[in-house]
């Protein structure tokens, strides 16, 4: 059974400190280069207090907002996959001796991250990557090691950006599962309702001696989160979507959107569920030692589908179609859920302002 507590700002600081004391590297939102990104934090002072984002298709602006609490910024371009499914990871090294070589597996242990400020849509994204990288035929040890060592502090959303559509994807804005602790900002974002999700979360809460939350705090929290859901203006109609998109392979809309799409791959980088990778081989000049690295890749590149003789998807149209159809249709068949959580990053960070919700709607027409 979840338990509910009342936290003020010093209590939040105490939580971050306690997690660091337990050996976790605390990672949370910070302002950098005009955007809120995730990076290491050491206290509440690092959080983007007093900042609010303005988002639209192809537009992101971080504005000063004295009324904004530390978690009122709404999500930025980076996602947690950077910490769990890193952009670059060494798979192994190899040492060469007399024509033969030896494989040297990685020996370093995985970092222990405490993620602070994980949104409901992002929890859904982590669950989706769990399904892909841990829950299928094979297990990705790099992801698994980081995932096992994880402590998650979720934060429920009390504001939505214009690009948010988690409510329609049924992933948010309230975090239901997948966290050790969840916080809901109340009282103008200066207080928090704490909720335990796991024994590990409950242990931390007990250790810090948080007082129990009064009932009116719980109803206030519930209402602010519901209000954030009501404030969402975009949506995707899930009912029958996978079937409709699978049948829409020859829809003229693909041509239209391909004229705008620059195949830059921003959407795949910003997307918290996109998992595709490529590999690169490096070696020392004398060839005695080689390494194999895995790196994020994007289905928007032409080389992604290369087989000797040429690429399978040469047109931008076919690449956009692959991305969107995978996200909203094939994913369902492959892993039992859509590959989209409604975070809206692909809409905000598309330089052409292509709106996934609008494309999905047009493709059903």
């Amino acid at each position, binding site marked *: 059974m979840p338990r509910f507590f009342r936290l003020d700002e010093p209590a939040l600081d105490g939580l971050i400190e306690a997690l660091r004391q337990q050996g976790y590297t605390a990672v949370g939102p910070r302002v950098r280069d005009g955007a809120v990104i995730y990076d290491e934090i050491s206290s509440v002072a690092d959080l983007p207090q007093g900042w609010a984002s303005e988002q639209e298709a192809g537009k992101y602006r971080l504005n000063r907002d004295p009324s904004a609490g530390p978690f009122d910024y709404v999500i930025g371009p980076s996602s947690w996959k950077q910490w769990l499914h890193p952009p670059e990871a060494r798979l192994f090294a190899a040492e060469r001796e007399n024509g033969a070589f030896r494989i040297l597996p990685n020996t370093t242990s995985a970092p222990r991250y405490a993620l602070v400020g994980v949104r409901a849509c992002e929890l859904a994204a982590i669950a989706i990557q769990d399904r892909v990288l841990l829950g299928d035929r094979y297990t990705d040890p790099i992801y698994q090691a980081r995932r096992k060592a994880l402590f998650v502090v979720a934060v429920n959303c009390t504001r939505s950006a214009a690009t948010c559509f988690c409510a329609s994807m049924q992933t948010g804005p309230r975090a239901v599962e997948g966290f050790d602790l969840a916080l809901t900002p109340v009282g103008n974002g200066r207080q928090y309702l704490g909720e335990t999700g796991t024994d590990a979360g409950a242990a931390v809460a007990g250790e810090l001696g948080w007082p129990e939350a009064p009932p009116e705090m719980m109803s206030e929290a519930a209402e602010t989160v519901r209000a954030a859901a009501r404030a969402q203006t975009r949506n995707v109609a899930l009912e029958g979507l996978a079937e409709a998109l699978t049948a829409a392979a020859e829809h003229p809309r693909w041509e239209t959107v391909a004229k705008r799409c620059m195949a830059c791959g921003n959407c795949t980088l910003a997307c918290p569920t996109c998992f595709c990778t490529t590999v690169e081989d490096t070696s020392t000049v004398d060839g005695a030692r080689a390494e194999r690295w895995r790196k994020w890749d994007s289905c928007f590149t032409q080389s992604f589908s290369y*087989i*000797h*003789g*040429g690429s399978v998807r040469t047109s931008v149209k076919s690449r956009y179609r692959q991305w969107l159809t995978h996200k909203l249709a094939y994913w369902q068949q492959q892993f039992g859920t859509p590959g989209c959580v409604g975070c809206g990053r692909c809409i905000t960070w598309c330089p052409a302002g292509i709106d996934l919700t609008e494309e999905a709607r047009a493709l059903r027409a």
Partner: protein
Amino acid sequence: MESLERIIAEQPFVEGLESYYLQLLVGCARNVVFEAGHTVFREGEEAHEFYLLRHGKVAIEIHAPQRPPIVVETLADGDVLGWSWLIPPHHWRFTARAVTQVRAIALDGKCLRTKCEANHDLGYELLKRFADIMSRRVDAARYQVIDVYGGGVNQ
């Protein structure tokens, strides 16, 4: 001696052909044997006949200066060799050479053309069969042009 009619009736080309039309074909047919290496017909010559191949293999060749002759297709048991007899100006477009000893039924083109003009039903039956052969050969030629094994090859 095997009756010519029975031999022709066994050929896939005449499958389903009513015996009345078969009789008309038999009237224009004769048995032939070509030894290996024999030129059955040559590019540019008048196309008098076509052949229902019973046994053996025939190469359809085309030659050009500066290079050895190219075999564009081989035909064998059950295949039909030649359709230039049907299409004006009735000249062979390619050269046909027996690769092995070949036993075949030769059908006289002029004889058949006359019968087809007189009996369009027979003409239709023959054209249907040639249309099928031609469409298959065009398909095969198109696939050949793609040079599938030169480019993307499955591992």
